[in-house]
């Protein structure tokens, strides 16, 4: 690693942590219903929304009502996105006249965006009309993120309230998250990104002349549009010359801003944030990468403020940051070393002042190794899943670390809201384990952790591995699962494992070689996303309801303090032990085998 590489990483981490407190403070005030600077502008809109929809903002919900509202709202989202994709050919804002999306792909994408996964089974610029991108995908980017934040806030209320059966109002939490937090931040980010070169227009794709004509072969089509075949059954090829280049454009910046801020990750274009019109400069890259972790980091402070002890929030943020930083400093050198198979050819892979060197397959020149590897860690630590380099082409262990970060359950920052409520589940397990060790009833933030909470927390921790490992096992056993694999050998297994790790933890990034836009993968991954979203969110709300009904236990001699370095270590230990024990055998079959083959082949 070069000194500039260290410097860029440090600036990133310091900026992130510096913004956590002010934004966290702001969000806490939003959720506590207090006045914030934007009230004069937004409060009338908020009141109007409640009036039109018949919502009484002062009405409190029990956890079951909260969960039902959450589910109904998400179901509407799935239906709307599905319908928009199927019908886009008949709807306006479709300048490229793109046809309707196939039903399995439309189902997958609808689920993917409603569950805040944003697995991208489709290729944006050749599949989605501008209307689908805006009214379908952008809307879900906002509201799925807001729903995750609402669930977190409900859980926090479970800790702060006593002897009550209500945990807040879902409609209010959803509306305030969208209106006061996500929209203003997205508006600012979108405009800065346009300034850097991200496109934002309703015009059709642009055609520009090429300086050098490109000739290529393509299958010759008959009059009926079907590829012609010769006597041996092979397609007849014809030579074609391309004199022009069609440049895909569209309303990208507005979509990309919320895609990053809401830990969504579904790109406007096929290659996501590797695309020069989606992420044109190092500065746009820095801001997009900062936006991925911004809200998840700040929510830790919001949590601390709302429970009345900011040290609790800092302790969780410290645990997340320590794991993140450690893995960054493993990932960057792995990619910087490069590919040993190229070393014997006359290729220069060293880092110098005039090139980044390293494993550049699938990476962009403007980002080089440091920003591609850093992004890979950040996007998989959060359940964002946008990419600025092709993870399938990373070195074996360089690809394994992002995969493992997802397998940890998306709790190292994680999704907006969902990351922190996932981490609080691990904190509950951690106090339970330490309670067993010292022989006391475990408690967390003044609430006794009993059998019901433990059962629910165990469900949230066990469901994702079940989905990931079960789905992977099924896919590699049957032919339709194996047929989509692109790279041979152990790497092919990694592609499948990565896909289910991503869907089963609502991340959304991919080893892109896997042809996942098939009925089999669209359906199975869609179901995986549904499981891992709702079988986590619902038990979390159940815990919120159960905790809210309990009284608050005063701190005593037997209380384990949960803001100390000891607890941070305990929390990190719990997350890593569960993640390592569950997934090491599967990882050994894919990335580890490939790594040994790679270094052994010299």
């Amino acid at each position: 690693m070069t000194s500039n590489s260290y410097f860029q990483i440090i600036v990133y981490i310091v900026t992130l942590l510096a913004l956590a407190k002010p934004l966290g403070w702001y969000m806490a005030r939003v959720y506590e219903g207090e006045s914030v600077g934007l009230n004069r502008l937004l409060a009338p809109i908020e009141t109007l929304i409640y009036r039109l929809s018949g919502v009484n903002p002062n009405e409190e919900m029990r956890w079951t009502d909260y969960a039902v509202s959450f589910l109904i709202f998400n179901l509407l989202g799935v239906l709307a996105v599905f319908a928009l994709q199927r019908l886009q050919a008949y709807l306006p804002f479709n300048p490229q006249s793109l046809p309707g999306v196939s039903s399995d792909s439309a189902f997958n994408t609808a689920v993917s965006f409603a569950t805040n996964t944003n697995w991208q089974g489709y290729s944006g610029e050749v599949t989605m009309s501008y209307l689908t991108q805006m009214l379908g995908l952008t809307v879900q980017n906002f509201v799925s993120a807001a729903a995750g934040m609402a669930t977190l806030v409900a859980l926090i209320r479970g800790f702060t309230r006593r002897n009550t059966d209500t945990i807040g109002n879902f409609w209010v939490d959803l509306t305030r998250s969208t209106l006061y937090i996500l929209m203003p931040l997205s508006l600012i980010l979108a405009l800065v990104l346009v300034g850097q070169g991200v496109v934002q227009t309703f015009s059709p794709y642009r055609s520009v002349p090429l300086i050098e004509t490109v000739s290529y072969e393509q299958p010759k089509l008959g009059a009926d549009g079907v590829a012609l075949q010769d006597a041996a059954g092979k397609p007849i090829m014809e030579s074609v010359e391309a004199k022009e280049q069609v440049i895909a454009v569209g309303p990208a910046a507005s979509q990309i801003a919320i895609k990053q801020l809401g830990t969504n990750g579904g790109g406007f274009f096929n290659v996501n944030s590797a695309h020069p019109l989606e992420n044109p400069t190092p500065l746009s890259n820095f801001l997009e990468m900062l936006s991925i972790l911004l809200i998840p980091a700040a929510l830790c402070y919001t949590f601390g403020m709302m429970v009345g002890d900011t040290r609790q929030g800092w302790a969780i943020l410290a645990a997340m940051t320590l794991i993140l930083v450690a893995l960054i400093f493993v990932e960057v050198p792995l990619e910087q070393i490069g590919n040993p198979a190229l070393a014997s050819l006359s290729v220069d892979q060293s880092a110098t002042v005039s090139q980044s060197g390293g494993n550049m397959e699938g990476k962009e020149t403007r980002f080089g190794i440091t920003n591609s590897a850093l992004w890979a860690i950040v996007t998989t630590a959060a359940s964002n899943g946008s990419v600025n380099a092709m993870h399938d082409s990373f070195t074996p262990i360089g690809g394994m670390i992002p995969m493992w970060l997802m397998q940890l359950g998306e709790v190292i920052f994680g999704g907006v809201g969902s990351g922190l409520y996932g981490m609080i589940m691990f904190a509950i397990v951690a106090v339970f384990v330490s309670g067993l060790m010292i022989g006391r009833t475990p408690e967390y933030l003044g609430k006794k952790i009993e059998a019901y909470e433990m059962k629910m927390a165990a469900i949230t921790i066990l469901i994702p591995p079940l989905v990931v490992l079960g789905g992977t096992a099924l896919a590699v056993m049957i032919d339709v699962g194996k047929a989509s694999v692109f790279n041979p050998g152990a790497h092919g297994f990694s592609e499948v494992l990565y896909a289910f790790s991503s869907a089963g933890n609502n991340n959304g990034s991919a080893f892109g070689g896997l042809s996942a836009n098939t009925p089999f993968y669209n359906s199975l991954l869609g179901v995986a996303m549904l499981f891992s979203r709702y079988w986590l969110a619902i038990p979390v709300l159940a815990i919120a309801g159960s905790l809210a009904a309990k009284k608050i236990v005063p701190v005593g001699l037997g209380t384990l303090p949960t803001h100390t370095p000891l607890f941070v270590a305990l929390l990190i230990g719990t997350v890593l032990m569960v993640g390592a024990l569950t997934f090491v055998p599967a990882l050994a079959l894919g990335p580890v085998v490939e790594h040994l083959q790679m270094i052994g082949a010299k």
Partner: protein
Amino acid sequence: MIKSLKAAIVLFILLSVLTGVIYPAVVTGLAQLLFSQQANGSLINDSSGKVTGSRLIGQSFSSPGHFWGRPSATGPFPYNAGASSGSNLGPTNPALIEAVKTRIQALKDADPDNQAPIPVDLITSSGSGLDPHISPAAAEYQISRVAKAHDVKPEILRALIDANTEDRQWGFIGEPRVNVLTLNLAVDALH
């Protein structure tokens, strides 16, 4: 239940209008007002006002008289800006090694006297397939070939490369890079 269904439906419609219609429309309006060049694809015009490409989208170059960009994995032809794509080849895939060997051979055939090691970005495909840049090292490597094709002194080309090189943004973010399209436009303008 009926009440929450009504709330859900109306709220869904209102939030959809807010985030899916008003928000993108406001961003588009402001973007076209403040940054119309960037918002429309950073297109480059020649002296007569004709569009000759985009500053941010690479093109395919393979003649000896032009600087070559990153290999592109888009289909059906390289640098298809209507369908971005990476190669997704894994590090141990024999197809990757074969592709790299072919690219090395093409570079060596075009400039047999050049014995310098080849900068890695020149023989590995980019993530987007549309990367408009190469590293300064990759530009430097190609000077001898382009100089021969145009019969100009290497210093002249080196000056053009410098003029089309962007340093790390704010001095430390990202990587230094050479814009291949604008560099080649400058090379063509030598005659």
